[in-house]
């Protein structure tokens, strides 16, 4: 079973993130850039499937030069090789354009399974797997907390607000995973060394047969008009419990008419 794992480099969600004044795009220069946390779980799932069923695991990312660090990091967990889609014209691409580019690259690789994180911590669009499914005409099994593979039959438990759904499809398919699916491994020293030598194929828009005008800020299907900081919440009253903390809390709730 050949698997492609989609990986995205994002600004660290645990640190402060800002938009640039000039064009309202994410300021990726000042941010600490990391692998989208949820993607680690997709890589782990791919490696487990490879251990059980054989085949190759390829990491694919679309992003600037800087994303090469994230590719090496991903490879150090164990995947065999990587594809880096990189083109200056891609900066500022919307989800629609991103999915068109990824779909073009996936068509060439023709994998049995495409794995990705259930959402990216920056855009939180959660729509790319279904956009890929729509473009490639293959099934999308999204929001998985469990994935089993039996021959070409894929079964996932999809997390829902009410509980979960069991969804079945035939490969090839796109599967997106939540962080409940497994516990990602840490790269070993050997893995980190090996990653330096693993092949990384760079693809440009020309390689994929996509016009620069269809992507990036120029081809975006939506645009940010303006942005501003939200006034931070200010702290209110803070008391130290001196045996009456619970009673004081209830008094507060009563004063605010909650009880």
């Amino acid at each position, binding site marked *: 079973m050949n698997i492609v794992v989609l990986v995205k480099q994002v600004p660290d969600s645990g640190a402060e993130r800002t938009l640039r004044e000039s064009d309202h795009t994410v300021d990726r220069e000042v941010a600490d850039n990391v692998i989208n946390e949820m993607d680690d779980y997709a890589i782990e799932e791919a490696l487990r499937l490879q251990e059980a069923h054989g085949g190759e695991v390829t990491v694919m990312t679309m992003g600037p030069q800087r994303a090469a660090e994230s590719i090496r990091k991903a490879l150090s967990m164990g995947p065999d090789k990587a594809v880096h889609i990189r083109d200056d014209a891609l900066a500022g691409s919307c989800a629609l354009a991103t999915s068109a580019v990824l779909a073009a690259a996936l068509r060439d690789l023709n994998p049995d399974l495409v794995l990705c994180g259930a959402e990216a911590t920056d855009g939180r669009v959660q729509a790319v*797997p279904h956009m890929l499914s729509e473009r490639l005409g293959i099934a999308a099994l999204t929001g998985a907390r469990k994935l089993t593979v039996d021959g070409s039959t894929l079964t996932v438990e999809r997390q829902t607000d009410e509980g979960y*759904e069991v969804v079945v499809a035939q490969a090839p398919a796109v599967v997106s995973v939540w962080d409940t699916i497994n516990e990602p491994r840490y790269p070993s020293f050997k893995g980190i060394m090996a990653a330096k030598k693993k092949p990384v194929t760079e693809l440009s828009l020309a390689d994929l047969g996509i016009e620069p005008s269809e992507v990036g800020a120029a081809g975006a*299907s939506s*645009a940010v008009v303006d942005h501003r900081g939200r006034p931070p*919440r200010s702290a209110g009253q803070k008391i130290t419990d001196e045996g009456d903390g619970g009673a004081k809390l209830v008094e507060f709730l*009563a004063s605010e008419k909650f009880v």
Partner: protein
Amino acid sequence: MSEVLVVVEQVDGTLKKVTLEMLTLARELGEPAAVVMGAPGTAASVADKLGQYGATRIYAAESEEIDGYLVSPKAAALAALVSQVQPAAVLLGATQEGKEIAGRVAVKLDNGLLTDISGLASDGTATQVVFAGSTIVTSKVTRGFPLATLRPNSLTPSPAEEAASPEVTPIEFTLDKSDTRARIVERVAEAKGARPELTEASVVVSGGRGVGSAENFTLVEELADLLGGAVGASRAATDSGFYPHQFQVGQTGKTVSPQLYIALGISGAIQHRAGMQTSKTIVAVNKDAEAPIFELADFGVIGDLFTVVPQTVEELRKRG
């Protein structure tokens, strides 16, 4: 006036709150029309309530395929409807399924997509709160009509001044083979008892690592029940197995925006704040006076939750 399509989310005949919010918003933008997609009989079960919130018409796609396959058939039906009625805007809930349907429709129609909006003006400008609530963005589609997903709890739903009695019109659409590739074979509801739905509750009481164990979470539940609230948890609490994952609040969990949020033994990491900081009133109990959660708490108690919470429960009981 042009129609604004609202894609309805419901569970067993009860409309999700985000649907009522979307209808309330749609009334300001044009003529609200509801789109009901599900098993046969779904539209009839929600028609009255949709009418109360101002839906003048219901477009329905009801079939075994719509109900039995993941998302694709719904996207096919919605795209077909959009092409037929040329709406002023289309609203979906910013829920997993809402976002997925919207993504597919965006590809089918090559139309821009506005995700997780908290408001939409009649000129098509959407408001979004991003980066854990720190930044407000306004944006627009540059191709097509505003196709947007509304974040739950963005506005207070209100019934229409005059209820409508919507007529049900079936949507004409066809499915091809690629629409029925992901079959839903089972739906499993996990018990959450009589508590309100986390994302819709007006009171949420959440526990974190400080709660210490699954058994101790009964304390969190007790307080939630006395306040008629839902129970939430931090990721440290769900990862440690104290509470089921579906109750996680935060960036990779649910976004809640209740009238009252009580955080017990939660430090207030930025990823947790992302899911709760638009709550109206925030109360925190934490034994660490420096915990960042206090920076946004309207009322904070520095103390041990195992003494403060039982006393709170007792005081609330006394008041009846």
